[in-house]
């Protein structure tokens, strides 16, 4: 690899544009390191976001060469082509400045999908016995390690086309909660994912499952919700 690369970085808000920097390449260097290097050495005003730097917090995701990725865990060898790199803020979210987006809608939808626990017991009750190998638990476990990085959300064109669409991460969370033996309001979940922004809008584009850095499968979770909601409609008329 060359000892330098040309990095185009998005500047400004939605109406901004790319600016190009020359960045020295290093042996162990992630895309996040590239961005930080520019801020620390070339342009003090560059804005980006990160926290954990090890792929746990999901706050560093950006578009790298047009594909959404977690940048703290993306080695530049994986993405640099012809000594060039293009870095932009995540798609499908409002841009605050440069590489930082406003993730509020993403989380509003998470809650709107009822992606939260509906308790069936309290802190005074014992911990519920749950067989880790039971089919429901397996389904719930499949999506539980989501770090809400919004990579899937920004890869999905249905999100882009339909502002009401809850999106893959929120729906996957709803599916996880739905399969949790401890959850007490499954009807509420099905209801909230069956509306005009719900799971039935998913066209199985598959980008969500392809790009999820944790190899989760929101597409399959959404199919699960479609099934469950239809079954419930057929069985009970709701």
């Amino acid at each position, binding site marked *: 690899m060359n000892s330098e690369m040309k990095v185009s970085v998005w500047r400004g808000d939605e109406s901004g544009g790319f600016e190009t920097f020359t960045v020295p390449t290093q042996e162990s260097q992630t895309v996040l390191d590239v961005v930080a290097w520019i801020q620390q050495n070339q342009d003090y005003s560059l804005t980006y976001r990160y*926290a954990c730097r090890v792929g746990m917090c999901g*706050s560093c995701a950006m578009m790298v060469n047009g594909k959404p990725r977690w940048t*703290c865990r993306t080695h530049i060898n994986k993405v640099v082509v012809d000594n060039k790199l293009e870095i932009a803020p995540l798609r499908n979210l409002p841009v605050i400045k440069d590489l930082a987006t406003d993730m509020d809608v993403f989380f509003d939808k998470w809650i709107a999908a009822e992606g*939260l626990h509906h308790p069936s017991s309290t802190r005074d009750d014992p911990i519920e016995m749950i067989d880790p190998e039971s089919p429901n638990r397996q389904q719930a476990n499949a999506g539980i390690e989501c770090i809400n990085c919004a990579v899937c959300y920004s890869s999905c064109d249905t999100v882009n086309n339909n502002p009401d669409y809850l999106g893959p991460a929120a729906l996957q969370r709803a599916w996880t909660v739905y399969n949790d033996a401890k959850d007490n309001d499954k009807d509420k979940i099905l209801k909230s994912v069956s509306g005009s922004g719900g799971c039935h809008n998913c066209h199985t584009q598959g980008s969500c499952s392809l790009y999820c850095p944790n190899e989760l499968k929101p597409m399959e979770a959404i199919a699960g919700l479609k099934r469950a909601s239809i079954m419930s409609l057929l069985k009970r008329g709701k």
Partner: protein
Amino acid sequence: MSIIGNIERTDTDILILGSGGAGMFAALHASQKAPAGTRITIAVKGLLGKCGCTRMVQGGYNVSLGHGDTVERHFMDTINGGKWLPNQDMAWKLCEQAVVRVRELENEIGCFFDRNRDGSLHHKAFAGQTADRTVHKGDLTGIEIINRLMEQVLSRPIEKLQEHRAIGLIPSKDGAALAGVLFINMRNGKLRLVRAKTVMMGTGGGPTMYKYNTPSGDKTMDGLAMALRLGLPLRDMEMVQFHPTGLLAGEHTKMTGTVLEEGLRGAGGQLLNDTNHRFMFDYDERGERATRDVVSRGIYAEMRKSNQPEGGGVFISMSHLGPDVVRKKFSGMVKRCADSGFDLAGGLVQVVPTAHYFMGGVVVDPDTRTAMEGLYVAGEDAGGAHGSNRLGGNGVANSTVFGGVAGDVMASDVRKMNTLRDPDEAVLAAEIERAMAPLHIKPGNVQALRQELQEAMWEDVGVMRTEFGLNRGIERVHAIKQELMSTGVESGNLAFNLTWHDWLNMSSLCDVSEVIAKAALARDNSRGAHFREDYPDSGSMLDSWFTVARKQGNDIEVVREPVQFTLVKPGNTILPSHEPETLVGAN
């Protein structure tokens, strides 16, 4: 001074700083217990739930919920681990309430911790414990805890101020109580004063002034620096916990310093020096499986011996266990190393001790109250629960337990507080002035100073300390702070101006670094995480004392206060006499 008239001013009743385990639980409990109509606000330096260290918890959460374990046993382990320095009432509350908190997390918040085949909670054994006590969700326990908490907070009418960085605690006019908190709204660069009847600070400490460190990037000791400026007493400030195996990948990458999990050593991982010698047995008969502090010192000593110009670390080797086995058992770690270009399963990965957790913090009572009315502190910002060393698994227990306590206590205390207090405008003006100072001087390289500070602390106030080194460290920190005060930041656009925040980070880090060094100088013995080469002895347990530091004018004053053995004295135990010493391996 005109800026002070320009800042935004808003009010709330209960204000919470930080969205780690402490902040989230405080917000939840406050919203459950406070009288109807109480306004609750949570302000955080990053995005809600997506910053701080609780999210990064890997190993798990200590709770005595099985295998014959008891609160008493958990308590005794905590006291022994902290080498008799913990505040015993806090430690007791920690162990006792952890049981309630884990049930709350499971039953009300919706966390799912790993189960045994029979459906019961799975507990694993963390080092330094006499029972299998640690509940976990794989090795991503923190994500599970914080995500579930985040959902609950987001679904409640709790005001959130994201990317609002607290920069000053503002007392009331008479100085008797806290009036509010000064923030920078990072997104637009504007200042905002939020008045509140009660404020809980849970900004999570974070020893990121060391060359190698594990915490999330947003943590820079802001809370402790603010408390220091307010004149509050801070305890155990010399106690910095190093994790023995941080990844070493070069100075230019943020991957450096991040934790390679404890389990690697537990499973038989070997530490080799640059001559391929497995050195840990030279230091301790338990070899790589010795406690964190011992292994950290072993590695540090080895690094000093080899004296490589590059400052290289030592190597962790797993391949003798069979690369495929390693790949399967530690898939997360193997992938993470691969992402920075290293082969953990088959090759050698360079590691160094890395600053991990800060035991020191604001002096609080077991109800999280501080010396100042209206201010509560919980989580890593609070001192006392761990004493000189924190057991693995007690960190997140501490932040969630005391965060919840703070929420409950504030919810009841606000009932007695009828009005908001008026801020001391002079302090407010001074805090604004302090934060804006770098914007008026010639811009310079803040990052270079951060590196200098991290070198200085690593070399002189690090894993092994001496009087000479500590004094030199203090001087170096002073010089760096001075340099910082004459280093400016480009002020053209204050919206999301990270370099301005880097500057403010440095300011907090310098202030607290000085306190760490001075407290370390005051402790002329070696306890827990604090090791003095010139005083290797631990001192008399019965006469144990802890350091209390506070700001006096421009100086830091450090005094010793005796530990009150309110529940158990050194040499004794509260375990019934028939109890075995350890339950690990018994079942």
